[in-house]
């Protein structure tokens, strides 16, 4: 059976026009552009499609939808990127990030969870202000908190499954994966602590109070974002060895492949992994971070 139905031409024409109007950014006073995409005055063009109400002209009526579109989507982005919103403030977030991002990457998925999916990519491509590095890290961190909230949980490796040496040997012949909700970061400073501190207050607080400092570390710091056993999103600082091993597990690795990789590493990293591998493996198993299902 075919589900392709013929769209009435008049309907399609009206919808295309409507979409072309409401998708255009509103100005700083939340007003619709008074010139239509065709170059005509919106007062004249809107009246061709829309009837006046007892109190509003046609252009005023479609302006409501134009405003609602931008207010809604910007609100959702602000909620989804709370670190960025506090780093920049509402106004700068909207003007320098949210609006240009949504113009380049308007929503095209039925789920609003995806709205900010391309914001880190947009920052990389299009954002060139002095604070670019901080904003890029902020976008990546915020996005990962969104993603980790909803991704699938693979059946975890449990301590029962590796209780006996025979079981453990069998498991270790398999490729082992880190859970999809795990994301790893290598950062020049403790941006996660900064994020936590900023999130203690609403964005407007930081317009009137100085942000806490975030010192650049001498060496890179490593962090993991994960979903805990209560399905809450958490983070913690990890060592270089944990970071690199978990990066392998993100792609999936057998123990043999992991050992081969280890042999190619610098001796400090090699020593760290060898010293802590069992303890890490036990910890990650207890946390449900590992799976043999990729």
């Amino acid at each position, binding site marked *: 059976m075919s589900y392709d139905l013929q769209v009435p031409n008049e*309907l399609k024409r009206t919808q295309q026009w409507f979409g072309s109007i409401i998708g255009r950014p509103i100005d700083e006073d939340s007003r619709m552009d008074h010139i239509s995409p065709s170059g005509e005055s919106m007062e004249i063009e809107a009246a061709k499609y829309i009837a006046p109400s007892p109190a509003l002209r046609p252009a005023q009526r479609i302006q409501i939808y134009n405003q609602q579109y931008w207010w809604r989507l910007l609100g959702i982005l602000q909620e989804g990127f709370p670190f960025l919103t506090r780093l920049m403030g509402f106004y700068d977030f909207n003007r320098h990030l949210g609006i240009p991002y949504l113009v380049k990457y308007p929503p095209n998925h039925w789920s*609003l969870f995806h709205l900010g999916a391309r914001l880190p990519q947009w920052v990389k491509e299009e954002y060139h202000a002095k604070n670019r590095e901080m904003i890029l890290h902020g976008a990546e961190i915020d996005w990962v908190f969104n993603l980790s909230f909803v*991704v699938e949980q693979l059946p975890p490796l449990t301590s029962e499954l590796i209780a006996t040496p025979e079981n453990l040997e069998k498991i270790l012949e398999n490729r082992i994966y880190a859970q999809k909700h795990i994301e790893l970061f290598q950062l020049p400073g403790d941006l996660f602590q900064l994020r936590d501190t900023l999130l203690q207050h609403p964005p407007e607080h930081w317009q009137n109070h100085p942000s806490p400092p975030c010192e650049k570390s001498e060496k890179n710091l490593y962090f993991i974002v994960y979903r805990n056993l209560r399905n809450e999103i958490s983070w913690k600082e990890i060592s270089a060895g944990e970071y690199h091993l978990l990066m392998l597990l993100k792609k999936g690795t057998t123990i043999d492949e992991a050992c081969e990789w280890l042999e190619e590493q610098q001796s400090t990293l090699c020593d760290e992994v060898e010293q802590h591998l069992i303890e890490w493996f036990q910890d990650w198993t207890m946390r449900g971070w590992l799976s043999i299902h990729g």
Partner: protein
Amino acid sequence: METKQSASIPNLGIGIGLRVPHYEDIFRELPPIDWFEIISENFMVEGGKCLDVLYRILEHYPVVQHGVTLAIGSPDPLDFDYLKRLKALTKITKTPWVSDHLCWGRLPGAHYHDLLPLPYTKEVINYVAERARIVQDYLELPFALENLSSYVAFQKDEMPEWEFYGAIVEKADIYMMLDVNNIYVSSRNHGFEPRQYYDNIPMDRVLQIHLAGHSDYEAYVLDTHDNYVCDEVWKIYGEVYPRTNGVSTLLEWDDNYVSFQQTWQEALKAKKYQKKSVE
């Protein structure tokens, strides 16, 4: 004679929308609320806390699914990836029906995440009715369309909204999810009497009623779901409810939240208006 509505549509009583700010209170108190409505899209995810919460709620309460992104009047083909996931969710929730809105919201390559109004024409009736029939057939559950709050009317409109709405549900043989706050909001925005609306729709197709608050800006009224239900809307509810012979009632509150108890008490006011209608 068995009417459309009486055919296996339960009256679940009075419910409220399941919302994050209320989770803690609900799980701590397990209040004797009749049912919850969920926004389907919030639970059409792969994993995580959302689904945890849903499973815990389902242990104690009936749940009904209400969607916001089907956008049935859109010009692109029906999204069967979306419908497949929607249907999969119905197997988890055991919802007795599924509803969404009589609107459009997508163009090829774009999703506006809004409930955009349709022109009220015979062509659009035929188009939307056929798609609604396909959706109900696919979901294998009663499917209802909700009337919008709208802020525009089109020059090409051939009929009033109530005639358009009634014609679609009859032609598609589906149901109405009647939002009485939206009747009021649209009556203010378009200058008609609410009674004109509910005097002229097939009440036997109503399977659920929505109540909500709104924001009044005088020149227009906005459907904001962030306030108590006003007297005028309660009045409409009191007149509509008896005409349905009793259907499930839901209070929507989606912003500027008050406590769970306050929300629930507001919803329970519906009993007073149901009783009034019996007297």
